[in-house]
């Protein structure tokens, strides 16, 4: 594990991409590639002791941010980023040099939380339906 900064970089990548992809004429692909390019440029311009593989971490974070709003609530983003962080430092070394490894990490981090998001929505909808039914019986 490398500390807090790598996690913050992942989170930043995810949040910026998530916010930008909801804008008109943007979309997940353009926003992910654009923000990652800008981040790489910022890394080159600002002489700071960036953590190792910062650009890769940010790029991976931007994949998480490519999730649809209906699939992943923005409150779940940090948890997803945490899962990605764990994946990157624990599984990443085993799939080094294989294209798509970052995407796999993002998918495995978003998937469980998308499922939780779906179940929560299902639970809320069921509660709402029950309340409606109770209201209608009371009015009768």
């Amino acid at each position, binding site marked *: 594990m490398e500390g807090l900064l790598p996690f913050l970089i992942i989170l930043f990548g995810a949040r910026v991409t998530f916010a930008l992809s909801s804008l008109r004429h943007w979309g997940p692909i353009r926003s992910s*590639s654009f923000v990652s390019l800008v981040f790489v440029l910022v890394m080159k311009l600002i002489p700071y002791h960036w953590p190792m593989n910062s650009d890769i971490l940010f790029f991976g974070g931007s994949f998480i941010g490519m999730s649809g709003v209906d699939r992943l609530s923005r409150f779940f983003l940090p948890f997803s980023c945490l899962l990605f962080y764990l994946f990157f430092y624990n599984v990443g070394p085993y799939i080094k040099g294989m294209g798509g490894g970052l995407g796999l990490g993002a998918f495995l981090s978003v998937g469980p939380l998308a499922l939780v998001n779906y179940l929560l929505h299902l639970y809320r909808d069921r509660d709402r339906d029950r309340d409606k039914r109770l209201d209608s019986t009371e009015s009768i």
Partner: protein
Amino acid sequence: MKNKCIVIIAFVAGCMLCFWGHEWFSLSAVVSSCLVGLLGSFVTSKKYPIVNSCPAAIYSGSFAGMCSATMIKSFGELFSVALIGGITYISLDCYFKGIGGKLGTVAFTSVAIFYLLNKGFL
């Protein structure tokens, strides 16, 4: 069938451009993939709706093209990875919509299948 071929071609193009970007022009794999993805995101058409699914295929292909040269050693191998990826992409196109990392997972699957075939596991 024609529509699927266009998507496969887009995937192959994304894969090759990204791979050549980081192997020939010495760009980092991230920058190469981002450039291909950003340029690919402008491949849209109002007249031909199928073209609008090309940006995702190009971006997914660019992830497959992020493989290191130790894994892909020749043009034939690169083309094989891209072709497997294109077929995987059209097979999984309608599943997991809106889940981040899907495109990368498709790319990883294609690379993994190629790797296993190459090593004689499949």
